[in-house]
Each structure stands twice: as structure tokens, then as C-alpha cells.
């Protein structure tokens, strides 16, 4: 090990007859690739089996009225896509993003302010704790009263969910920065400002970035719940409408669309996170696992 480490800088000079090593490595890599493929194939097979049971069992073992079926859902998705799926999707996503952007920015700003003005932060600590005790979704009906049944009430709800997430994460992150990092920066000659921007903020960045990542599905939940309550458009409203009409196929299709949207977000955000936080050892990367 030690010698490979030392040689890692330049080319590793292999002793004569070392080509065997190359072959071994190639064989090992092939084995790893095979393992990967095996995993993929088993997963696909499992998905097909589950969907087949669902499709085959419908109207044989259980009533299509309650659970619909994969083919019905596909057909409905096709029809819906020709009709107004895009319109509702765009409305829901718009609510989500406006709410998320405002909530996240305000949350981070507020966290930074309270961390910087430590005295104010201390004063507000018990209040923050109290507000944190409120289940935020429970505020949804109030928001409908305050902001109407249009998009604003959903934007506020989506924003609120991501706000609190980012606010707490930023505040805790900034407060938990290793004091030794700050002390050593001061010793090396950093001003207050440099210490904050070059040491404290980067040290807290995993907290903030993880909160920003989890915030996206949170904001989506906020928008959907708002639409469930009272709305005139949006995916949540549409799912609610289908359910009210006992159209399970429609409702399941709506849920499916949401699932795909969340998976897409998560994949993109995980990539982004892995890139931004590439300096972290892999083991701690699990800190912010997916939340839907």
C-alpha cells in the first residue's frame, strides 16, 4: 500500500512480469460489472412480476374500482397527457418553485442573521423552539383563509415548509462549526468577514445544502396539500377531484406523475450535492438521504 501511495504522483513502474497484475485487475473489474448487471436484471424482473400480479389480479382477485390496474393507468396517462396534464403539472411546479426559492433564501438569510447576531439568536431561541413545535401542514387551512384559494396560498405553504427547513439547518450548521477552525483562521490573520465567508460558511455548507436538497420535495408536498384543501387547478386538486368522483385510475395516475417528478428532482439534486460536497469523505455522504 505504502509504495503505491508514494508512486501515485507519477507513473507506477511495474516490475517485469507484472502484466499479470493488469490481467487480475481486469478480471476483478469484469466481476464487478457482472455483479452490477445481475442487480439491475433482478430489479427489473421484480418490477415486472409485481406489475403483472397487479394487472392479472385486477377483476379476478380484487375490484378495479379500488385499485385500478397498470394498463388502465397507462391508458389514462396517455389520454390525460393529450388533455390538460401539462397545464396542471406546470401550475403545481410553479407554486413549488416560487415557494421553494423564497422560502429557502429567506430561511438561509434568517439563519445567517441569527447566527451572526448571537445575542438576538439567544433571545429568540425559546420562540424558535415553540414555532418549531407546530406541525406546519396544520397551518394549511389558515393559509387558505388568509391568501385565498388561488396559487398564493400554495406558494406560501410550500415556502413555509422549505423556509423552516433551511432556517433551522443554517442556524444549527453555523452554530456547530468547530471553534478550532475559527481560532486557527484568526491566528492566520483572518478578519471577521474573512472568517465568516471563508471558514464558517463553508464549514456549515453541508447542513445548508442538505436542507436545500430535502426542501424541494418538502415544497412539493406543501403545494399538493394546499391544492387538496381548496384550489381550482394543479395536480393536487386534480387528484382530489378524481378521488371525489371515485376515479381511482385518475388518482393513481396523478400519484404516479408526482412520484416521477420527485424521483427526477432527487436524482438531479443528489448529483448536484455530490459535486458541491465532493470534499467530504464518502461515509458521511449519507447524512442527508432522500426524503420524499
Amino acid at each position, binding site marked *: 500500500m505504502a509504495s503505491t*501511495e508514494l508512486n*501515485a*504522483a*507519477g507513473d507506477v513502474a511495474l516490475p517485469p512480469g507484472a502484466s499479470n497484475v493488469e490481467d487480475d485487475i481486469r478480471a476483478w473489474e469484469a466481476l464487478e460489472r457482472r455483479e452490477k448487471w445481475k442487480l439491475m436484471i433482478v430489479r427489473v424482473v421484480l418490477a415486472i412480476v409485481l406489475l403483472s400480479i397487479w394487472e392479472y389480479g385486477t377483476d379476478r382477485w380484487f375490484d378495479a374500482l379500488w385499485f385500478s390496474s397498470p394498463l388502465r393507468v397507462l391508458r389514462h396517462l396517455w389520454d390525460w397527457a393529450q388533455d390538460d396534464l401539462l397545464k396542471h403539472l406546470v401550475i403545481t411546479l410553479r407554486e413549488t418553485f416560487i415557494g421553494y426559492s423564497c422560502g429557502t433564501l429567506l430561511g438561509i438569510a434568517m439563519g445567517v442573521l441569527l447566527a451572526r447576531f448571537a445575542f438576538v439568536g439567544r433571545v429568540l431561541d425559546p420562540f424558535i423552539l415553540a414555532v418549531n413545535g407546530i406541525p406546519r401542514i396544520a397551518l394549511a387551512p389558515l393559509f387558505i383563509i388568509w391568501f385565498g384559494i388561488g396559487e398564493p396560498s400554495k406558494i406560501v405553504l410550500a415556502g413555509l415548509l422549505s423556509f423552516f427547513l433551511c432556517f433551522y439547518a443554517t442556524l444549527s450548521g453555523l452554530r456547530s462549526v*468547530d471553534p*478550532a*477552525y475559527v*481560532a*486557527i*483562521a*484568526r*491566528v*492566520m*490573520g*483572518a*478578519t471577521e468577514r*474573512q472568517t465568516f465567508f*471563508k*471558514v464558517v460558511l*463553508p*464549514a456549515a*455548507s453541508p447542513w445548508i445544502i442538505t436542507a436545500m436538497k430535502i426542501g424541494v420535495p418538502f415544497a412539493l408536498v406543501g403545494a399538493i396539500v394546499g391544492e387538496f384543501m381548496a384550489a381550482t387547478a394543479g395536480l393536487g386538486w386534480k387528484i382530489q377531484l378524481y378521488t371525489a368522483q371515485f376515479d381511482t385510475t385518475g388518482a393513481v395516475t396523478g400519484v404516479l406523475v408526482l412520484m416521477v417528478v420527485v424521483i427526477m428532482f432527487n436524482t438531479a439534486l443528489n448529483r448536484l450535492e455530490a459535486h458541491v460536497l*465532493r*470534499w*467530504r*469523505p464518502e461515509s458521511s455522504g449519507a447524512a442527508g438521504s432522500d426524503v420524499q
Partner: protein
Amino acid sequence: MMASVKAAHMTERAAAGHAASRDTVISIERVGHVFRTKGRRVQALLETDLRISEGEFLTIVGPSGCGKSTLMNLIVGLFPASTGEILYRGKRHNGVNRSIGYVTQADNLYPWRSLRKNIEFPLELRGVPARERRERSQHLIRRVGLSGFENSYPHELSGGMRQRANIVRTLAYQPEVILMDEPFGPLDAQTRLILQNQLLELWQEEKKTIIFITHDLSEAVALADRVVVMSARPGRIKTVAPVPIPRPRNLFEIHKDERFLATYQALWLSLEDEVKRGAAQWQVQS
């Protein structure tokens, strides 16, 4: 006859008067420090007097918990001493003294910065242009054998590599005095020996004043111009002894040197009691 008297006189002066013959950089005058933890007062440091002169390599040994690190924190000015005062070139200092570099026990490299970026950090703070930063960091990286790892993040480096980076990060901005708090503590014996050698070379090249804390007496003797032995808590200075071994020293052979052995034995007598007293305190605590 005359010559030998003169020679004896010279060695004596070189030994005892090392500090007196050069300018004093730091003088520690009757410094004491009290910590308050959980309502209890702990006297970490008691009536400490010490003068460190320009270009000196001073090592401090003492049992763990004897206030060595506290003394370092006070010298660099991270917090003010409860009693007494510390003068830097004859003047009091409020807050952190930027002429003093501090290599801490934990490497404290910033995990979000690559090796190169970590070493360039103090230069960045001073607004040194990118090109110059790059040159300086590159030189130091090569100097301590870390070439090829410039873009690695700290978690990708071994303990010895991180500690080397930690040391050259402080050398990068050339503080006049460098404090080192057990920088080689967690490393294995071979790595330590190599790093000790590199440190002595760097010290001789850059002509810095170094105060070096260690719990390892043989390391203290091998590196130092003078060795300070501190007592168990409350820490105070028990013995100060010069090391009469000429420079440059060969650290790989120094352990066989008679002068090394004599100094080591004399200091061990002084340290042994303190180590035992320190261990006794330890048992009471736990």
C-alpha cells in the same frame, strides 16, 4: 591550559547563556491562568516565567493536562491570561498576535479545501496574488514531499501527510515565531523521525523561533536548544536545561550521542516525579 579554560568557558556560555546572548522575542512574566468549568475553578497555569530568544528552538515537556496547550493559547493571544503578562518584543498585545504562527495538535486543515488551497489559505487572507500563492505553495509542497497530492482533499491524505500540510500552511505566510503543539503526536515512529528531520532543516533554512510542545522527552532533547520541563497541574516551569549538542544534528544517530544521553537522564529525573503526580491526579479524576 589557557585554551581549555577558554573552551570550557565557551561551552558554559553557549549552554546557559543562549537566551541572554540574543534578543528576547517573547517574555512570559508571572503568567497564571484559571479555567472555570461546571462551576469549578481549575488552576491550569501558575506563576510561569520564561524568555524565548530570537531564532531559538525551545521544547516544552510535561505530563498531560499540565497546561502546556494553555500556555500556547495565551502566547498566541487566543484569550488573555488571568494573571501576569506576556510581552512580544517588549510590548503587550491585545487579541491574537499575527506575528506568531500556531501549528495545533489536531491538523485543523479545512476539509472543503484541497491540500494546495489549504496551504494557500493564509496567503489568500493577505491578498497575495494567485500566481505568487501558487508558486509559494508549490515550493513548500515539493519541499515536504507532497507533490502529486495538490488537489487531494484532507480526508484522502494519510495522517503524516496532513500533519506536513498543517506545518507548511503555517510556514507559508512566514510568521516570525511558530508554536507547535505536539505536531507529531499521533504519528508512527518512522514518520515522526522523518518529519522531525524535515522540521529541523526548515528551521535552519528559515531561521524562525520555534516553541515546540511534546510529551516525548527524547523528541524534546533531540530537537531543542533548550528544554523546559513543566510540573503536573497546576502547571509551572520546573526545570530549564540547554542541550549542548551542536547543529546540524543527525536525528537518526543522535540517540547514541553521550551528550544526548546525559541531558536526557538529567531531565528525566526532573520529569519522572511530575509524570507520576500527573498520573495520580488522573486516577482521582476518573
